[in-house]
């Protein structure tokens, strides 16, 4: 039968899986994956993440922006391709590390006398001819080994040779397996932590006095903000901390109250509430007109934060919400200017140096006779148009209007809270601990294993042989120091090896 006549072997699904598994087991694959992931995370360090597509067009131009948006480089960490890469890396790590358990158990196992004899047959790495008898040589050498932290296991005699297994840091046999699986645990925990529904990562804003309830019930309880405050260092004006006094409302019941600040989160039902942001809510005013007092407010927002000095952020009333029509229907108050923290000096109000709320100041303009707005109950005819600058009001101050007064009550503040629940967190912590234990074992307390053999030679002499058992790392390989100490105790003469004669002697003695 010619090769052409031979039937083409059928490729089964099992073959494909086996080939893929084999490929995943290769260290080269792990490195390739890690390389791609490293490039991806570097890209997202340079390209701002999670921004509006328009901003990429403005910054990079149409072509580059298209590439960024199409490839998901604007949200790398949540992009499907990135998650798939991490998933393949996990599989690869499992495949690669499978053999590590087997190797670890082999290293953990104590050697048999026969295996140990094989290691020292024909001489070890270090050989010395002692003038002492075999029992005396053992008695002299053992303390030197113990001094270096070695445990000695008497393997008994094979032929004339008396064998010992000297080992230290035996637990470290598991170090490599632990370190590799820790990476797997951390990556798995990270994936679980990013699954929507299992975990939650949300930022919410609540105004003083308001209660937050999530619309999609992703946060299964309400959070009421009683008060938000910022404590500053009087010496330099820097912020010491931000405090949110909150109450947790589960169902209709208030179940918990507490103070949240940076570094001091509040925990409820596995959810962590942490201080992440703050803001100003409203500037509140009180208008008295015709014997009636009503309360109104202007919303506040950050107006400008120069990149060079974020502490100099300005707060203001959004232009489209700066006009408040008064009850008479033809006049209005216009919020012309707002300072979160102001100082009045010689009658002039100016802004303090920071954005933090201190003594707020609201500048109002009173506009009357607005065209198209007829005063209620007024006679026919065009109302008289007028504009009066009321100037800045500090909290509690009142200014007169045409038929009443306006009083600046003050401002409300809002807090920004991070609400997080990470389902994968326990796995991540276990992974971290495991990796620290594993790496400490590998690099700081490496497993050291040697076979030490004592072989009687003629004229009451003993050949002392030391050979590594398995491969040892060279970081803490102290066999040379141990050997020097043993030589001092035994007082022997170093020989290059047991040589051909010894080999012969051995074969006869075996």
């Amino acid at each position, binding site marked *: 039968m010619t090769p052409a006549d031979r039937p083409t072997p059928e490729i089964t699904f099992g073959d494909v899986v086996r080939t893929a598994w084999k490929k995943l087991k290769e260290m080269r694959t792990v490195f390739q994956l*890690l390389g791609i992931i490293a490039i991806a*995370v570097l890209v997202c360090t340079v390209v701002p993440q999670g921004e509006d597509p328009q901003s990429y067009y403005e910054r990079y131009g149409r072509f580059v922006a298209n590439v960024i948006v199409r490839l998901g480089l604007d949200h790398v960490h949540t992009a499907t391709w990135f998650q798939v890469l991490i998933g393949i890396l996990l599989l690869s790590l499992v495949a690669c590390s499978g053999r590590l358990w087997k190797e670890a158990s082999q290293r953990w196992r104590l050697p048999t006398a026969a295996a140990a004899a094989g290691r020292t047959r024909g001489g070890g790495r270090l050989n010395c001819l002692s003038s002492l008898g075999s029992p005396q040589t053992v008695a002299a050498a053992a303390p030197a080994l113990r001094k270096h932290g070695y445990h000695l296991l008497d393997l008994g005699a094979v032929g004339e040779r008396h064998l010992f297994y000297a080992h230290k840091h035996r637990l470290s046999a598991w170090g490599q397996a632990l370190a590799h699986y820790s990476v797997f645990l951390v990556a798995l925990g990270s994936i679980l932590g990013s699954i929507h529904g299992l975990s939650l990562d949300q930022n919410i804003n609540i105004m003083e006095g308001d209660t937050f309830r999530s619309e999609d019930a992703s946060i299964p309880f309400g959070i009421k903000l009683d008060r938000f405050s910022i404590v500053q260092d009087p010496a330099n004006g820097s912020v010491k*901390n931000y405090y949110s006094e909150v109450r947790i409302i589960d169902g209709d019941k208030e179940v918990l109250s507490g103070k949240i600040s940076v570094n001091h989160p509040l925990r409820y039902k596995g959810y*962590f509430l942490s201080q992440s942001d703050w803001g100003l809510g409203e500037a509140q005013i009180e208008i008295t007109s015709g014997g009636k007092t009503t309360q109104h407010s202007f919303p506040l927002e950050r107006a400008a934060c120069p990149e060079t000095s974020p502490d100099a952020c300005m707060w203001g009333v959004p232009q489209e919400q700066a006009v408040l029509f008064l009850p008479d229907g033809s006049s209005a108050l216009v919020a012309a200017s707002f300072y979160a923290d102001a100082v009045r000096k010689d009658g002039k109000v100016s802004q303090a140096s920071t954005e933090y709320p201190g003594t707020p100041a609201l500048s109002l303009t009173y506009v009357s006779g607005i065209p198209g707005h007829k005063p209620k109950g007024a006679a026919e005819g065009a109302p008289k148009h007028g504009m009066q600058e009321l100037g800045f009001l500090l909290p509690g101050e009142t200014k007169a209007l045409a038929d009443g007064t306006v009083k600046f009550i003050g401002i409300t503040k809002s807090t920004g809270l991070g609400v997080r629940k990470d389902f994968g967190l326990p796995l991540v912590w276990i992974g971290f601990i495991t*990796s620290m234990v594993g790496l400490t074992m590998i690099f700081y307390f490496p497993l050291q294993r040697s076979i030490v053999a004592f072989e009687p030679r003629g004229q009451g002499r003993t050949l002392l042989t030391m050979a590594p058992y398995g491969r040892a*790392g*060279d970081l803490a390989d102290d066999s040379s120091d141990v050997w020097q100490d043993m030589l001092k105790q035994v007082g022997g003469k170093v020989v290059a090896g047991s040589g051909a004669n010894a080999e012969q002697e051995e074969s006869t003695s075996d």
Partner: protein
Amino acid sequence: MTENRIGFWGRLSNSLPPLEQIDRNIYKAVAFGFPLLTMVIITGAVWAQYVWQRWWSWDPKETASLVTWLVYAGYLHGRRQRQWTGKTSALIVSVGFLAVLFTFAGVNFLQSLHSYGMASPSPSGRILGGFSDVDPVEAIVTTGFFLCYLIGFLVMLQGTVGGKQSLSKVSFGFAVAGFVGNAVVLILRSVQAHRLTFTSGYDFSLWFVWGVTLWGLIAYVSKQRFALLGTLPIALLVSMYGYLYFPQKGHVPLPPALQNKLWLHIHVALAIFAYGALALAAGWSVLYLIKHAATGAGRADAEGKPKGQPVGE
């Protein structure tokens, strides 16, 4: 002119330990620094979880640390599994330290959670720093320790090239004096700030320099005499960066997120030791590459001559 240059590199190369020995020194330093670097990342994650309830945010500093970790992990795996030694591994370790430097300095140019403690550099200040806002004693001692490191390096270089071993002791003396001066500056700053000054960019550069020199000195007394030849230039480089990049060297008030002292201190202290050990590895790597190039070991590699001892499991 050319002959002089060849002579200089040749003499330098001849005085250095054998390539195999340098290769082992590189490995020892990385093997000590890598677990520390892992702990730096882990304690950073624990701290972030504590402060923001998010243990990983793909912040530029976190990302750069992860990439650095991957480079060193690659080196260790390559060495253990594939017996990568010699020029390749020295190059990888050098690249790894460039990643360390990027983690330390490069991310300052990107928006990062870790820029909290940085005094904002002004464009004019970047060109020339200055000591206008620090105590005069501190300014004098800082200048002093920098000069000690510089003289220590030059003396070591002269001793190595000139084959005068006794000069290495003089160099060691200058390095110790610089190290003590460096420590005095750190103590002075901590006393003035009433806390361990770990958190501002300038402070960390001073600690970084201290950590690098500490490892150089430890290596020197552990019979790695030429380690100072590698670590002192790195200490000088980081010192100069700290001086030039941070025009404001006064104390910066700590933002609330940095007031979590326990985890923050553990995190930064580990970073100082890890970076120091990796700087030692990088110093040896550069010396390896110099010797490799100067002795024509590259040709030996190409001819299939042994590059170094295969290493354990």
